[in-house]
């Protein structure tokens, strides 16, 4: 392996995973908007998308796992300043538990779409948009609907209709993620989006 194709060292992995878990915590400071369904609109799904697109599947997964572990330990890092085991039994728990997997899927998609070698910021942004839609919307909502059916005892149709409310907002987040990826691609040309090879 040449220098450019080297994967991260252990110290780098530790720092990046911690950074994106911290990013989730920072997004938690943005207030959530509560909806009657019992599932809020939050900024944190954007953190999930970003973790996947920026770090790739393995590290993105770990970052979200670390974040959920910290929430479970009781740190009030979840949107709106919530924490503790209790949040995993709310109607929204399905969404929450999907975060690590969603980041991993976003990372996989980002890596395979972006491919190897030099790539323009514009192209990377487009890949990030697609990865965010697949990981950050499709995966999250599938789990979210399952959660609503099991925990809120909704029928599939009720749950599916309920979750659609979030999709426009989530698409806006995907656009923001694409913008951020575009900026980073210009500012840090050697960033390995999705863990891809340069």
């Amino acid at each position: 392996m040449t220098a450019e194709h080297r994967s991260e060292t252990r110290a780098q992995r530790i720092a990046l995973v911690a950074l994106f878990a911290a990013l989730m915590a920072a997004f938690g400071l943005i207030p959530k908007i509560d909806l009657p369904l019992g599932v809020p609109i939050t900024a944190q799904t954007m953190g999930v998308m970003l973790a996947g697109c920026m770090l790739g599947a393995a590290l993105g997964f770990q970052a979200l796992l670390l974040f959920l572990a910290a929430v479970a330990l009781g740190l009030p890092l979840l949107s709106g300043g919530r924490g503790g085991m209790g949040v995993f039994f709310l109607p929204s728990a399905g969404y929450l538990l999907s975060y690590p997997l969603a980041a991993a899927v976003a990372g996989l998609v980002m890596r395979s779409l972006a491919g190897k070698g030099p790539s323009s910021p514009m192209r990377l942004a487009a890949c990030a948009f697609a990865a965010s839609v697949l990981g950050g919307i499709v995966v999250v909502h599938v789990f979210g609907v399952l959660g609503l059916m099991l925990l809120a005892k909704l029928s599939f149709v009720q749950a599916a209709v309920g979750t659609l409310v979030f999709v426009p907002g989530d698409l806006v987040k995907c656009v923001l993620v694409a913008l951020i990826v575009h900026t980073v691609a210009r500012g840090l040309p050697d960033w390995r989006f999705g863990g891809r090879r340069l």
Partner: protein
Amino acid sequence: MTLSLAQTASTADIRLSDVHLNRGAQTVFQGLSLHLTQRRIGLIGDNGAGKTSLFRLLCGLEHAHQGSVLVAGCDVQRQREQLPGVVGLMFQNPDDQIIFPTVEEELGLSLQYRGVARKAAIVQAREFLAARGLADWAPRAVSGLSQGQRQQVCFLAMLMAAPQVMLLDEPFASLDLPGQARLARELDAAPAQVIISTHVLDHVRHFERVLWLDHGQLRGDGPGAAVCAAYEADVKARIAQPLDAAAAAQPTPGAP
């Protein structure tokens, strides 16, 4: 070169009256008063003496909890919006100053306070760089520059803003010898009032005025040659003592 430095007006007049400043647990200034009208002023003193704190006061980043700070007629605590054309600061640590990811964007920001549009500012930044033989720096990522190169970017950004008063916090610290010579030359040519803090006394020895800060107090104030000599004599006396004795004699935080 479209940007003429001569456009800056030149009322060299900085007044601090009875300024008291705390930072964290530290009392930095306790009644500092200064009146600076010279065009080239040096600022020397030990680590922690208050050089950076003084600069931060002058550009409105720190608020004195007592006393007033006037720069070229501007009250820095009340008229913050007007400051950018009046005072410019080159930060001691380039990482504290640099905001944008590429050199041209970073320089372009310097023109925004005058209302130059972003795109136009970037074009001017490119011309500004080209005039210095640095055209190839324009699109480069700041994170891919060496520390000294970043410090040069910081200086160029301040030069481009062409404020009436330029505050340079240890501007020579990471520059190579040609860079230091070039910086000194550009400063000589600048019509602005210039205050330079430094630990390399030779850079300010020939200035008409040098201030020597010691634990937030003005311990020396006068022509460069005299003040620098006094500071050097003091330092020599201190380091002549053996390591531990010197340490024991200097229990203050500013003098490790």
